[in-house]
């Protein structure tokens, strides 16, 4: 199997008296679509937040491509090539669709205050390039026709896709998608699955996916890890996980009530 792009070593995170993550040790190989499943509150979003630097883990360490990233601020983690979307869609709603994606190109551009303020030729060139690339990503996700609309005016499904486009614009090596299918209807979810597969295939980006929609998870992920009450319950290919004794036991335990 390919080398490990992301490695978590006994990562824990506490909130007050709650243990959101307990000693999670896990690794994500490069070039796969990896799904994280588990009930709400199992610690999936907390795990995303720890990896992307929204807050540091209480203990343990996280390595991205061999570099230790726990405790780094999230823009530094982003600069290393980790990008993400948010569960509740964190678009900049007053900015246009295109501008949202252009912001994703932020760390690929250099122009400083003076260059921007005086519109130096270098900045103009760079701006053209930003627009060109942003349009490419909009084209990739199929939103190029909407580029002038305010992001907040799009329907939820398109907002979710736009958020992915914005994340892709940062040219990540690892993309974290937090419940991308939440609130989407079946057709939209299918398109989304298609998009996620294209992201891996065409762009070669490793995808880490938190999702409730089992169809989507089973169809598009290469590997699945089950988080349960802040710990890793099981991991493997979708079919391995489905037939895992522990998983069956725990979930049947609840269902057989």
């Amino acid at each position, binding site marked *: 199997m390919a080398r490990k792009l992301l490695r978590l070593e006994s990562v824990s995170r506490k909130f007050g008296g709650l243990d959101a993550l307990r000693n999670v040790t896990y690794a994500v190989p490069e070039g796969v679509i990896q799904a994280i499943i588990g009930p709400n509150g199992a610690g999936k979003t907390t795990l995303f937040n720890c990896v992307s630097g*929204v807050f540091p883990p209480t203990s343990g360490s996280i390595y991205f491509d061999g570099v230790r990233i726990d405790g780094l601020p999230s*823009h530094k983690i982003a600069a290393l090539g980790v990008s993400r979307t948010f569960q509740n869609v964190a*678009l900049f709603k007053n900015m246009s669709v295109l501008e949202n994606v252009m*912001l994703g190109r932020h760390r690929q551009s250099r122009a400083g205050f003076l260059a921007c*303020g005086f519109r130096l030729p270098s900045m103009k060139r760079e*701006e053209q390039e930003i627009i060109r690339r942003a349009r490419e990503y909009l084209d990739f996700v199929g939103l190029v026709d909407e580029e002038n609309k305010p992001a907040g005016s799009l329907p939820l499904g398109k907002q979710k896709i736009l958020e992915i486009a914005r994340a892709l614009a940062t040219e990540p090596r690892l993309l974290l998608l937090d419940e991308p299918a939440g609130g989407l209807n079946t057709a939209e979810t299918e398109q989304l699955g298609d998009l996620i597969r294209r992201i891996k295939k065409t762009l070669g980006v490793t995808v880490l996916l938190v999702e409730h929609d089992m169809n989507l998870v089973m169809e598009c992920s290469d590997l699945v890890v089950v988080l349960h009450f802040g710990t890793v319950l099981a991991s493997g290919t979708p079919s391995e996980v489905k037939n895992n004794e522990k998983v069956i036991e725990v979930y049947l335990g609840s269902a057989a009530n």
Partner: protein
Amino acid sequence: MRKKDRIVFLFFSLFVGLFPLVVASIKAVSHYIDVMIFAGIFSLVSIGLCLLMGYAGQISLAQAAFMGIGAYCSGILTTHYGWPSSLALMVGLVVTGVVAYGVGVPSLKLKGHYLAMATLGFGMIVHIVLNEEVELTGGPSGLVGISGLGIGNFQISSPFAWYYLVWGCVATVMLFSLNLVRSRIGRAFLAIHADERAAQAMGVDVSNYKVKVFVLSALLASFAGSLYAHYVEFLNPGSFGLMWSIKFVLMVMVGGIQNLWGAVIGTVFLTFLSNEWLHFLADFEVLIYGLILLVIAMFIPQGLVTVVATKLLKKGLRDGA
């Protein structure tokens, strides 16, 4: 600059350029040019504050203090040490920049009320220092004998010269700011304003940009302060107290908090309002001023210019259709 900004800018330049020619020919308003000079100086502060508050979403109640630092650097260096005014102005900028950086780094980690409190506290400290360092600043009685602005033998003295100098600066700063907010940096500001977490996840170094825009706004205030010092040729700490910081916030808010043109229009409007048009209110002025502020903050927090512009736009669309 983009095409549509250019149209506005053209109108702006036309208006600003013709203004003194028109008012000078009418005796009754010939002094409006002096009011406009002050309005221009204040506009520099409010443009900076607009970038900070409207675009990057950070509050500052210390702008008058930064203005004071610039003004007193100019004042002290020209009176006590006989420096040329232009050099003193530069030093004022450097000093303000350093101070703003020092204050900004810890302050901007705070949010909301705490940030307001920190900047307000800093502003008060500057005010106290200006009051107490009598040897240097002249204390509360003020600093007299500041030299006018000029380079070598060329002195800016006539109101026209001052007018065009000040508004030339406003135009330049306006251009700079317009370009800035329509660039990657402006997008970063807006992103920070909208959602710091998401901005950071997109690779924007949030705290760095917050400090930078804070320093930028302080520099503009300092520059305005130096102009003020050389124009009035007298300084006292009363011009740089908390009330003035609040007035600058008000100027930005009246025009439209996320609208650079609004900041300038709001500043001009309020300067004329309090210096020319509200005179007849006498003792009622404080009350009326408070009420205007209250009504604007309550019902049109997005600002007058923005609201009027949107209204006109809607009407225009209806009529057009």
